[in-house]
């Protein structure tokens, strides 16, 4: 068994000219971009690059995923925890098509990744050659940019552009497809980082008039309300958000992509908006007089029915992507630009304020939610274990410091609702695409990107089995992630919808599961199962104390539901507490 060592290499600025193959050039490009770690899976059309990876293994760590989808999610986890570009590599044909889910996930959640795929040789393009697929055509709708390279000499410029586009502006996935002849051919290599593409304006210049108009609305509002999203984290504007919230005394809520940008225990952090968000922020969305949206995109899971969403309020939208303005919700004032820049420009115009009476209403609503939902979720009195109490124990054992990587479903909503964070880039989840199978590989990537941090994957029994093979990475490299499977032997969220909206017709949501502990042990991972409350605390403490990979299965109540809930298509005002 290998021990994981990720080499930190200082990025090289500019390479002197040398005559090398396209495959070797790819390695030099990656090194020049500061890449020290990538995930991938070899195959025919990418073999020349793997041959060079073998030569350069002292500089560049390649992690063999067990499926290309796992490689993309690991690259995403790495990118989300570090803020750097994650890299995944695959061969042509099925290797490339297996990247599509990760690309789509990264596209909708604005995650910077670069995927490199091998392609059949140029003279075979369009001939239905072995493992030929039109990955450019396939990946176009799910990439920020993609390009096919058919000549070795085009490689440096294509990769330089790929990294620049992936990380700049609103980040996103980029795919570079490189034909096999371009990998073999030799050319005079030199590398220059890309800093400019003439048709691309990643950072719109903030407009002072818009800033002043926004400040005026904020200063005169009686019941202002902030909803922030991942744009705060991507724009590195955590400090500015905190300063705004505190100076203007505005209650602030988050989307699940934004959660860790402000300490969960901050008195003005009023919780989560959206379908399974907190009662107060949802219901008060329709009572505020000013809604300040920062780095969020008014997803339908956040807004519910748009016809009844914050109609009484003026809306300010701080956003980096002009295409998001007036897409779902009309903005009275749109402030374009990077969140850090725009908030910094805004702050001097903001008057100190408290809005105490308004803040108190949030506290009252929280009390209602605590009594009807939260108390029973995290301090249950019934015999069966709840997902909420597991998350609460992890909070306690980690001191709110862990990176929580969640999959998709009930456990995800519970994890986002109850996990506590005191540092940014700590909640990694598949928000927009809702990709089951995301968490295990993403947790591996997150851990490798932040070896100093505790990384806990929270996964349901359904999603876990979609990428369970990535336990192989954990075994091979001894990646010390903590895996918690909250097993209710059901596809819990679908089952909940069937119970509430399909008259309890449980079509294909009952899971007959394998022995997860044995499977983990098969991968030489220490594994425990907890079915009773008395064992929960000490097992979680044991898990968190371990410096090795650890698997914990918690058998939770089979038919628990996640509340509050805004039924699909309903108004945020119609949030149900039970």
């Amino acid at each position, binding site marked *: 068994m290998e021990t994981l060592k990720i080499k930190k290499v200082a990025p090289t600025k500019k390479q002197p000219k040398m005559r090398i193959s396209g495959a070797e050039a790819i390695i030099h490009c990656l090194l020049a971009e500061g890449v020290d770690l990538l995930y991938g899976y070899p195959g025919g059309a990418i073999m020349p690059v793997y041959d060079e990876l073998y030569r350069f293994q002292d500089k560049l760590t390649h992690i063999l995923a067990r499926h290309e989808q796992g490689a993309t999610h690991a690259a995403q986890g790495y990118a989300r925890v570090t803020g750097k570009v994650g890299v995944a590599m695959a061969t042509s044909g099925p290797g490339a098509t297996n990247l599509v889910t990760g690309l789509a996930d990264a596209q909708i959640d604005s995650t910077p990744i670069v995927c490199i795929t091998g392609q059949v040789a140029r003279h075979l393009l369009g001939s239905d050659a072995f493992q030929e697929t039109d990955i450019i055509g396939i990946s176009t709708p799910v990439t920020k940019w993609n390009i096919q390279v058919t000549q070795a000499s085009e490689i440096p410029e294509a990769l330089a552009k790929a990294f620049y*586009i992936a990380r700049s502006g609103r980040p996103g996935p980029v795919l570079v497809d490189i034909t096999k002849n371009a990998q073999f051919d030799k050319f005079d290599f030199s590398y220059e980082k890309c800093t400019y593409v003439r*048709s691309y304006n990643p950072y719109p210049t903030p407009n002072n008039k818009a800033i002043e108009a926004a400040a005026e609305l904020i200063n005169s509002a009686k019941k202002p309300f902030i909803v922030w999203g991942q744009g705060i984290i991507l724009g590195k504007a955590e400090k500015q958000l905190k300063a705004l919230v505190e100076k203007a005394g505005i209650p602030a809520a988050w989307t699940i992509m934004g959660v860790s940008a402000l300490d969960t225990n901050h008195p003005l952090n009023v919780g989560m908006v959206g379908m399974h968000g907190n009662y107060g922020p949802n219901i008060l969305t329709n009572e505020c007089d000013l809604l300040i949206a920062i780095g969020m995109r008014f997803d339908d899971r956040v807004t519910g029915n748009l016809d009844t969403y914050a109609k009484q309020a003026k809306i300010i939208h701080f956003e980096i992507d*002009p*295409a998001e*303005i*007036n897409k779902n919700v009309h903005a009275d004032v749109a402030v374009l630009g990077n969140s850090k820049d725009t908030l910094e420009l805004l702050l001097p115009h903001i008057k100190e304020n408290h809005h105490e009476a308004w803040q108190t209403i949030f506290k009252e609503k929280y009390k209602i939610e605590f009594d009807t939902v939260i108390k029973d979720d995290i301090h249950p009195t019934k015999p069966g274990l709840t997902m909420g109490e597991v998350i609460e124990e992890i909070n306690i054992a980690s001191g709110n410091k862990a990176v929580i990587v969640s999959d998709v479903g009930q456990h995800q909503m519970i994890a986002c609702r109850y996990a506590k964070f005191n540092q940014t880039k700590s909640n990694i989840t598949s928000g927009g695409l809702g990709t089951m199978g995301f968490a295990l590989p993403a947790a591996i990537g997150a851990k490798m990107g932040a070896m100093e941090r505790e990384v806990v994957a929270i996964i349901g029994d359904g999603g876990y089995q979609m990428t369970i093979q990535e336990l192989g990475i954990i075994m091979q490299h001894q990646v010390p992630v903590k895996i918690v499977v909250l097993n209710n032997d059901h596809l819990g969220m679908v089952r909940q919808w069937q119970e509430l909206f399909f008259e309890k017709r449980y079509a294909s949501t009952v899971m007959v599961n394998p022995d997860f502990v044995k499977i983990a042990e098969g991968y030489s991972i220490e594994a425990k199962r907890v079915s009773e409350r008395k064992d929960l605390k000490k097992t979680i403490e044991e898990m968190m104390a371990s410096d090795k990979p650890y698997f914990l299965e918690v058998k939770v109540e089979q038919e628990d539901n996640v509340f509050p809930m805004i039924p699909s298509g309903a108004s945020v005002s119609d949030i149900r507490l039970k």
Partner: protein
Amino acid sequence: MKKALFTISVYSENNIGLLNRISGIFLKRHINIESLNVSKSEIDGVSKFTIVSFTTEEWTRKIVQQIEKQIEVIKAFYHTDEETIFQESALFKISSNLLFDERQIQNIIKENHSTIVTVAREFFVISKTGRRSEVDHMYDQLKPYGIMQFVRSGRISVTKDVMGITALLNGTKEAE
């Protein structure tokens, strides 16, 4: 909101795959493209797409925002028919016999300000340039006599107001 014809003009880099990216934006929203024309523009190395779609102004605005978001798109605009000068071209292939047997054919050619492009033993070809309605009108007139082949181009248009793409390109360059 009322549906209408909107002309979307896209100035872009001349790159493989961009057409796919742009058509995908329509596909994703289940909006049909009525006509599409791609050509070089007034600026060296810059392509111009002229896309006509029949939808609401709100959807057109959102589509233009999404088009403009694409990395290789320099700028995209949308205009109503009133704001543009536009036309289409059409070719009609007609049996040569008709030219001699049916006097009315010559009148149709004259009245529609169309031109005969070529005359062969078996057929002749008429070219008509103008608005969609004018081309349709001529089509309706010729139809009873039998049209061997018919083809119409996509709309091409120029706007009445200034586009300022060159300034935009220079501007972003300077900004850098």
